[in-house]
């Protein structure tokens, strides 16, 4: 008769526990932990990872649960666990989570939902431990996209004592759809990188040379970017350590110059010396394939680099993207369509010394409101209260009227 070793082990464990005396079977002390759930590894390779490390890095007793490996398991944050449910039933998911967290007492859960597995894990932990839960929507996976079904998303949100959204657009869209209150928490910048004085480039503006910031998530965006820059008389540095999957010579021929990847400090120094940055975003037209991201997500690099370098930004794409709304709300940049003429106008406008200086001044003022200091604790305190602990981020919500200056 074949023996199922796993079942046999289980049986032996059960029998041991049944026959053990009270002293032998006394439970080990449980560790009190917070759980942070993300789709992939928490590291410096992506905005969510950077942001979460900024908020909770160095905190003890954090368990970091993910459902996917996108960076070969590379993570330097909390106690990493990978939990995958796939098509398993709900009770199987609960059992898996219970087993994975045995010996731990979960106090609080922060879920950044992206995959259905993330949602299931969060719901299971909340149910198993009665832990208070915060859901932080950083990327839309429900409204413009069907990555997470309505039922699961609703359950997650209803069970969360605190719901946060990374952008005003995300907050509004989710509140409207689910009829539940959300609070706005924007991407932040580390206090150590925030200058106390204004930085103005020493080179003359007529060089018409800028720098590309942010991720080009859509395969369309590099092509749109190249077409826009080509023969415009404007050149751009691209300091991401790759060439967008395009031969470097071709990029250079278009006026886009790939650089080796830079550490943040070095990148900030570079940005402080330049006149403008270019942030490619979505067109939000019928051909848009990243609407969920462009419309609702506020790129963390935009806030990070604006705060640390004050560099004015040209957002490429629609004026209805979250990035465009942001630069226009704070008066730190302009929006241009993906067409050469519009782009040239934008560069002309933004490199006018008085315009550029005014934008930098506004960036300096705004930067102080996007500092990371104490925000991790702010989130836990807000969770305790079930609402924003104070109005520091609520006051950043825009009136939803774009300034005339932003239109190019």
């Amino acid at each position, binding site marked *: 008769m074949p023996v199922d070793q796993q079942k046999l082990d289980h049986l032996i464990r059960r029998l041991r526990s*049944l*026959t053990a005396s009270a002293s032998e079977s006394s439970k080990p002390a449980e560790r009190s932990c917070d759980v942070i759930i993300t789709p992939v590894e928490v590291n410096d390779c992506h905005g969510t990872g950077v942001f979460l490390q900024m908020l909770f890095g160095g905190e003890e007793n954090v368990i970091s649960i993910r459902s996917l490996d996108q960076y070969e398991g590379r993570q330097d944050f909390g106690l990493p666990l990978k939990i995958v449910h796939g098509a398993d039933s*709900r*009770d199987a998911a609960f*059992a898996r989570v*219970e087993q994975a967290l045995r010996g731990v*007492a979960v106090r609080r859960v922060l879920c950044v939902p992206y995959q259905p597995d993330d949602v299931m894990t969060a719901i299971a932990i909340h*149910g198993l431990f009665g832990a208070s839960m915060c859901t932080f929507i950083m990327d839309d996976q429900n409204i413009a996209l069907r990555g997470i079904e309505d039922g699961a998303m609703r359950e997650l949100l209803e069970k969360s004592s605190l719901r946060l959204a990374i952008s005003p657009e995300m907050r509004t869209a989710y509140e409207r759809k689910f009829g539940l209150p959300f609070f706005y928490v924007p991407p932040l910048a580390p206090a150590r990188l925030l200058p106390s004085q204004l930085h103005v480039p020493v080179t003359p503006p007529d060089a018409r040379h800028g720098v590309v910031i942010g991720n080009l998530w859509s395969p369309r965006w590099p092509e749109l970017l190249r077409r826009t820059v080509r023969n415009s008389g404007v050149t751009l540095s691209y300091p991401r350590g790759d060439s967008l999957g395009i031969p470097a010579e071709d990029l250079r021929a278009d006026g886009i110059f790939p650089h080796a990847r830079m550490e943040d400090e070095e990148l900030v120094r570079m940005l402080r010396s330049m006149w403008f940055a270019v942030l490619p975003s979505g067109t939000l037209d019928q051909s848009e394939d990243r609407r969920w991201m462009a419309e609702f997500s506020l790129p963390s690099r935009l806030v990070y680099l604006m705060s640390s370098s004050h560099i004015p930004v040209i957002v490429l794409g629609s004026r209805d993207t979250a990035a465009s709304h942001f630069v226009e709300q704070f008066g730190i940049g302009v929006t241009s369509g993906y067409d050469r003429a519009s782009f040239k106008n934008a560069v002309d406008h933004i490199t006018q010394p008085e315009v550029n200086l005014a934008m930098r001044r506004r960036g300096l003022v705004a930067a102080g409101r996007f500092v990371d200091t104490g925000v991790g604790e702010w989130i836990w305190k807000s969770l305790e209260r079930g609402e924003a602990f104070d109005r520091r981020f609520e006051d950043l919500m825009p009136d939803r009227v774009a300034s005339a200056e932003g239109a190019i």
Partner: protein
Amino acid sequence: MEPARRSSLPEPEGLGRRHESRATARTAGALDRLPHPTHNDRLRAKLDAFLAWKSDYAKGDANQREIDVLITTNEMNDRHGTGVLIKRILERPEHTPPRRNLFCIRFQNDWGDHDLGDWNIRLPKTGGNRVECFRNVLQLLRGRKVRQVLCVPFQVDELTASIAIQEAFGARLCAYVMDDQNVAADGIPDELMREFLQKSSLRLATHPELRSAYERKFGMPFSLLPAVAPDALIPRSVLPPVVDSGNYSGRGALLGSFWDQSWFDRLCAALETSGRKIDWFGNHRSPFVEFSDENLRRARIRPFGIVSEERLAMELRVYPFIIVPTGTFDPAEKNYSVASLSLPGRIPLAAAISQTPLLVIGGKDTCAARFVKHFGIGETVPYNGVEIRAAMDRLTDERTQLEMRGNAARMGRAFSDVGIGEWLEESIALGRAADGRFEEIFAGYAVDEP
């Protein structure tokens, strides 16, 4: 199936039907005085649970079927009120399609046998350890499709297990509150009760006072599901009045069991001067209360023990009145929560199946007193021999008999158990009472708490 095993607790006597309700409610103090379980008891209990987990129902084919779960404190059988009522609601009458697979979960063995559902198990108590309770539930039910959970909450484990099933299996949860353990008592913490009620798609209470107290405290709507009576035992017409004549001339009936010595002693002292002989239908051999011959003799009480409901119906019809002792709001009252928010299920049952007027002895603000007053089926007097005697005389008056039996006949039909299982199933699915049948019964009911 879990192997039949006797509890380590003393076994109540009397194997007939219809026992006093909610054993645990009344015996908490007495249970504390019993010997603590030995190591062997604990081991045996663990093995019970272990064997049940590994039994036939865990096989694949059975796993595929959708089940309903019942969660109670102890065994469901005919020997206590909760068991009788739950069986009446969940068991399908003969010649009707059988109910879906019913899985009964309990947390203690008080009676030695369980008599409901396709499977049953006693899970170990966790004392409210949420994770442990989830683990036990997952180990037990994993792989099953759980459709509905009906929970009669009394101790923390029932609530936690219900929450676990609702959470982990996405089952619809129905809370059926029969005894208060939160508002006037402190058996269940507020936070747990609130979560349990919030997660319930349907919340039921047996009577309006209990409903009102919970609605007021937790701000959530409850529906009524009173203790219904077996339709076959409800007379189809008004029974003739019983005036002092025949074999039972002058005798009265006493219905119910006692879970506290002071309640029995108090009743005996009051009946001593009432001048009537009393036949008692209830558990007279309790491990918790001493029913001394001397006390019984002085109170002129003749114990019959627990009898079947069929016999009870026949017996009670020939008495001029039925005594139902209840609590008071005197400072000396030991069971304040029972007195204030409990309605003994035997009251509607006795009225429905016998139509005999009820003599409630106790406080005028108790649920029992309000019930008989609302339906005009009896009266309430304090524990005072003179007043009791006068009430007995009033109730044996022919006109009173006619009037109260007529009222009981009308009330009784409304408490019929016909279709009650389907009503509950539909109500849980809908998340509200399937119809207004029980709201109509209690229309205009005064629920002011004392």
